[in-house]
């Protein structure tokens, strides 16, 4: 069943900027859908339309068959959206913010307090004590904002960059929680992120958006099949004679990445030969590092939509 059905969606700002230009896509119930794209691609505008904060210029968005613009109650009932920071609750403690958000989402007082206590205990938010959210670090605020979204166990979660500012252990905690919710409660997750490498661990289907248009849409596997599927051998060599020998590797496209740092692109069916030659011709002694990589979601992102703008940003 479709959770969201988007057809012909256009959003044109008064300034004339077209943020979304004729988008058509569905988000299935119970899937983890990623919306990837460079800054200014139109992701945030799209999310704000999905949750009814912004009306489309034309086109339609249906949530479980209900028009989002005409019946905004359906969004507040089924969808939990927490922006990057919950600044509105800056003067509340983490415990207060969780319980209050639960109550505002329709939970009974006792039930909200119980769930808030469980979440705070499970994820160590009690360590923040009586400090108001506004006094916590950026990462801590982001973590609390993430758990606010989970109150009252909504069927759809919309997350805008949930792991920005988080340290590695908290980032892992967030991804694991999202996977768990999806697995155990069939929660639909819509994820907006730049963190393509980490998001790959959880995403099932991806839409890449650039300049207001969806440039690629499909499962992670489908999209990978559309990009350069060659195996990448990444080498760090410590001897000049080994580097000279790379010129003889005719089975691979050899690219320099830096001093002593090389990339070999080889077709899948000749990958084994190339690996054998690296080990045999170059030898382990001349290798500081050797990695075998297959196409990642980041490659998909760079080749099917996000790359052009990203390169300009850098």
């Amino acid at each position, binding site marked *: 069943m479709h959770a969201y059905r988007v057809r012909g969606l256009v959003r044109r700002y008064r300034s004339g900027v077209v943020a979304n230009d004729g988008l058509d896509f569905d988000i299935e119930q119970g899937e983890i859908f990623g919306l990837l794209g460079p800054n200014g691609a139109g992701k945030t505008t799209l999310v704000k339309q999905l949750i009814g904060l912004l009306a489309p210029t034309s086109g339609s968005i249906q949530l479980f068959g209900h028009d989002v613009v005409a019946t905004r109650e359906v969004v*507040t009932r089924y969808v*939990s959206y927490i922006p990057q920071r919950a*600044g509105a609750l800056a003067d509340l403690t983490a415990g207060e913010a969780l319980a209050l958000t639960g109550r505002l989402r329709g939970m009974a007082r006792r039930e909200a307090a119980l769930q808030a206590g469980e979440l705070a205990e499970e994820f160590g938010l009690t360590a923040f004590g009586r400090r108001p959210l506004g006094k916590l670090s950026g990462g801590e605020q982001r973590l609390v904002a993430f758990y606010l979204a989970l109150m009252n166990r909504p069927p759809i979660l919309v997350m805008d960059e949930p792991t920005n500012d988080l340290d590695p252990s908290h980032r892992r905690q967030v991804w694991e929680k999202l996977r768990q919710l999806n697995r155990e409660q069939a929660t639909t997750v819509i994820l907006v992120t730049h963190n393509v490498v980490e998001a790959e661990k959880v995403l099932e289907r991806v839409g890449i958006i650039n300049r207001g248009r969806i440039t690629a849409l499909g499962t992670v596997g489908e999209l990978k099949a559309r990009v350069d599927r060659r195996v990448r051998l990444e080498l760090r060599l410590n001897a000049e004679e080994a580097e000279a020998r790379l010129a003889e590797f005719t089975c691979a496209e050899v690219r320099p990445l830096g001093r002593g740092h090389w990339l070999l692109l080889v077709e899948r069916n000749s990958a084994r030969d190339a690996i054998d030659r690296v080990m045999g011709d170059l030898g382990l002694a001349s290798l500081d590092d050797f990695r075998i990589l297959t196409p990642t979601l980041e490659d998909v992102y760079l080749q099917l939509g996000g790359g052009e703008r990203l390169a300009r940003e850098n």
Partner: protein
Amino acid sequence: MLGRTRRWIGVYLDMCFIRWANVRNEWYWYVILGPLFPTALLAFLKLTGAATDPASGLYVTAGNCILGIILGPMQGLANDLAWGRQRHDLEYYDSLPVSKLQLTLAFASVSTVFILPGMVYTLALGRWWFGFPLRPSLLVLPVMLAAALSMVGFGILAGVYARNIHHANMINNLTMLVVMFLSPVLIPYENLPRILQVTSKFLPTSYAADAFRATLAGRSDPAVWTSLGVLAAFGAVTLYLATRRLDWRTE
């Protein structure tokens, strides 16, 4: 029906708690700064001879109080909404099953409660300096409530259309000028220029000041009820337009 009403009130009280949390950590600023403005204004009016006898003392003291009751919730809401929109904090409320009316009423209610200690202080100071009698009628409470809500719609308008918090502050200063000098809040009606005597009839502040002075003196005659009705109608209509008809969304 009963369940829905209970839920509505519960959400309203939770919103009040959020607004209360905004000020609970800095309550001492309200205690210290709250009485400064009315003390300075009353002292100025007494020392310059603008108010000397009990009647003129009651006029300026009540005007001073009504100024706070009207401007406090209105300016507080304008700042809260402008700041909330600037920082995208309002998206939190937008994503929840709560109404704009609950949000604005809660924020205005807390602002009003915070004005009360300063108002009591101002009345006590005015009574001590000018020696006027205080015989408040029971209508004083509904008058205060209606006065507090009368300009809340304008506060929302300012908060929604201000480009940022600085812009909202400028609008607030402008409204303070209008309320202080273009309606008979501090300056008696008879002393206003003819044109302002006419325009003041269209400002709720005139009715709030009249009704508040009358109820403080113990009156509850038809004139007070008329002013109360005008205030309530003005507040209800502007609040309805601001919460149901005004587009709060940003681009």
